[in-house]
């Protein structure tokens, strides 16, 4: 019996030996080279909105539009960590509850039907954000709140909110500095928690946040340079607040044209929102990144295009004799025989529910109104008739 040869392995090696220039063709060799082009096997996204209060509606809408694009392009919820500092969809001031719009005239509802927010409200803190990035979460944290990336994961990190020169404000009470962020990325690199990282920030003076990065394989984009403000796009008169920031608005427009098999690359992303549209000057940083940005596809970070290999070999297994299955069946039946047949109805104290006595109400002292009324009556009585009658009452 000959052992099975791995035909695909030899095919891959021979393809690689013949063609190793990276071109964007759709032929057979192109698919085989897919493995080495990007070097990643899975995608993660960490999307953070750091502002609360109703007038910061646009920051939540920013994060949700990136969330929507990333999901549409294939990254599943289990690989997305979404942190929203406030709940706009169910805010009391939202005239259309359970919706978050990104275009005026309410064209596009980015909240959708199956949004999964992992960190919400006051859980969005600098500490939790850094814990998610570095992986130092308490052992009781569920899987959906963890960033379980490995050394072949491409991670997209998107931050939005109010920021300044070298810091980003969280929840109106604390801030994260660019040094802390750079150190967090360095710890991720030390533990090889990412293969490549794309960092996008949409705040005022956003470029200051990526100035301090020093770990390899990071590409960063920001919506404005140091000293510039990022502006919001358009208000909606019915909702009453600005719906989106300019940079993310045009980013969303760009991403709506991308589909999972698209070949658009990072150079196109750098051109999103030029100064004429954005008023601020978007910036980017690629010196830490090892590949040429022109060869990096948008779907390397925003989508999740899996690499597949055909399974060429199989193990020959012989089916066992029957006794194994019979034993299991008898064992299963023995466990199943119940000791006492219970009917569903008997498990609930229905008699108590239907014929219950009225609930005992605790006695409360008379409240303010009654007290005030009686005080008034007594005062008038004494004023009229004199204090000597007091002894008749007390």
């Amino acid at each position, binding site marked *: *019996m*000959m*052992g*099975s040869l*791995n035909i695909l*392995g030899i*095919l*891959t*090696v021979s393809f*690689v030996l013949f063609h190793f220039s990276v071109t964007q063709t759709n032929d057979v060799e192109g*698919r*085989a080279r897919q*493995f*080495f082009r990007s*070097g990643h*096997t*899975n995608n993660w996204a960490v999307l953070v909105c750091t502002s609360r209060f109703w007038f910061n509606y646009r920051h939540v809408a920013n994060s949700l539009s990136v969330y929507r694009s990333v999901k549409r392009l*294939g990254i*599943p*919820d*289990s690989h997305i960590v979404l942190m929203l500092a406030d709940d706009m969809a169910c805010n009391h001031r939202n005239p259309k509850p359970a919706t978050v719009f990104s275009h005026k005239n309410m064209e596009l509802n980015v909240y959708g039907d199956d949004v999964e927010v992992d960190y919400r409200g006051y859980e969005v803190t600098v*500490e939790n954000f*850094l*814990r998610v990035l570095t*992986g*130092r*979460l308490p052992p009781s944290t569920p*899987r*959906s709140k*963890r960033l*379980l990336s490995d*050394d*072949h994961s491409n991670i997209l990190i998107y931050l939005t909110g109010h920021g300044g020169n070298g810091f980003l404000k969280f929840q109106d009470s604390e801030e994260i500095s660019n*040094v*802390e962020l750079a*150190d*967090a990325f360095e*710890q991720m690199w*030390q*533990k090889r928690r990412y293969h490549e990282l794309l960092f996008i920030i949409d705040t005022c003076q956003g470029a200051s946040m990526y100035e301090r990065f020093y770990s390899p394989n990071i590409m960063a984009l920001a919506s404005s340079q140091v000293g510039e403000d990022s502006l919001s796009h358009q208000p909606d008169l019915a909702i009453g607040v600005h719906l989106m920031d300019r940079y993310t608005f045009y980013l969303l427009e760009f991403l709506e044209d991308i589909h999972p098999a698209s070949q658009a690359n990072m150079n196109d992303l750098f051109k999103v929102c030029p100064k004429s549209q954005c008023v601020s000057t978007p910036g980017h940083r690629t010196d830490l990144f090892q590949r040429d940005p022109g060869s990096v596809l948008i779907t390397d970070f925003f989508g*999740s*295009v*899996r*690499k*597949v*290999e*055909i*399974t*060429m*070999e*199989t*193990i*020959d*297994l*012989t*089916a*066992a004799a029957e006794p*194994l*299955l019979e034993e*299991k069946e008898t064992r299963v039946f023995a466990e199943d025989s119940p000791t006492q047949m219970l009917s569903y109805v008997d498990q609930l104290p229905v008699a108590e529910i239907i014929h219950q006595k009225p609930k005992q109400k605790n006695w409360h002292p008379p409240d303010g109104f009654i007290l005030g009324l009686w005080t008034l009556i007594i005062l008038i009585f004494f004023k009229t008739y004199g204090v000597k009658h007091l002894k008749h009452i007390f």
Partner: protein
Amino acid sequence: MDLEKQRGRNAALAIAAVVVIVGIPLWWRTTETYRAWLPMTQIRELDSLHLCLTVEVEVVFAQGTLAPDHQKKLPLSQVREQDHHVDTETNLKYRYETKYRTATIMEEDALNQPTPAEADTALHILSESACGSVVVYVLPASSNLLAEGVNVFVGLKRTALVTFEQRTGPLQAVLSAIDAEVEPVLQTMSFGHRDIIAALSNRIRLAKLSKESLVDSMRAFKSSPGYEITFSLLNPSPQYHKVQWDIEGAVQQYIQPLLDKMAPVSNFSVDSQILYYAVLGVNPRFDKTASAFTLSADSLAHVINPVEARLGSNAASSNPVLNFLLYVPDPQHSPLIIRDHRGQGVSTNAFHSPRWGGIMVYNVNDMYDKDTASLPVNLNIDMSKVMGVFLAQLRLLLGVHQVRPPKGFEVQGPGNAGVADWELDRLLWSRSVENVATASATITSLSQLLDEIGNIVINDNIAQQVLNAVTAIQAAIAELEAGNLAFALQYSREAILASECAFFDPSLLHLLYFPDDQKFAIYIPLFLPMCVPILLSLLKIVSEVRQKRAEKNAKKD
């Protein structure tokens, strides 16, 4: 001098003395962070990795392979070493300790079986070889135990049968000839240099890796203390097909032996589920020539994502998940065939994705007659065929290396055992090396981090974990050098668990970055109002003393 002034001066001096002698040390001690002691010198030693991997090889000569005068000189042992300098901080040394001896009577009997597989089993009954070792039985060239054109047979249990022509000449020449025959066997059955380099990919630059080992390292999951395996049956049309699968029995029979054998490497938990109305995200095309629906290799990449959203996972653990999906196509799209890059059908009808899992398409259109059957049709899945494919995919994803033996080799397939002992040994070698490399990288980067940031509190439990990790790494390296693979793996597992526990401890969060201006902003309002009067009074005392001295000097003159 007035008494009051004297008193005032003494008071000021006493206060200044208290501030300096009591206050400053007290402030220093109460604001310093607790940092338990860490073995820094030992950690710095871990930075450079010098690994020595020792393999014990036993070469047993059957009758007719050695000339009698050579036989008298046996048993003897030799050691062969290979040095590989990987980079400035990593050095590898491979030692092959070879013992040559003649076969015993019982072994000769065992070799007299009709087929090599039976000879292998009989030999295994006689003696069990240690984990990590290789035993080679040398048969005479005249033996017809091995098939035509085959001169090496690799069995299931760390033994190999090699044919060899008896030759004359000095013993050393004969032994070198045997070594030349044994070398390819060792490359197949024991670790190869490529695998060890791939296991060290954490430490070394990727440029040194060959393309194949890069693909292997991308496909297999990294070493983890536990894995979760989920088997899912996808039935897009339960109104037509009522599909039954005995997954519990199949797992017990086919998968569990492999998982039991791999228990020293990591823990496994297996579960299964059935998903109804789950469709593939891709529309297959109908091919008239094959009269079947086809999925081309290009479209396979888009199949996984829509399905993955519906697969659950265990919320409590953070172990990597391996998903194995079995898809039974609906009658409108049956039969469904997967085509590879060259347009040919794939015999297994399955594909897998690196570090994720595998999908197999199981066609049921020939199990019932479409026109006459009453819907829904009861279908039983042949689990041995399905599990054969899943087992192959599982082996690939867990890192069991694929061997490409040279010409003339016959390698026995693992069958129901799941994995051959020597395949497991190969995995253990690379996992031990990977664990040791990862653990030492973790510990060194942790100590670097703790060194750089003076504000992080180092609790006692972290220090204990670091100490455990360091001792376990040193023990693992020692065991690798001694050739005890099983112990080396155990220690390396302890090392990696302890180092991960220490590195990812929640209390180590670096939230204590204070820019200097913030530090001043905190301390100045506290200390300035207190220090200014003290300083001023001290200055006044000093100036008075100086004045007095000047007066005294003036008086003297």
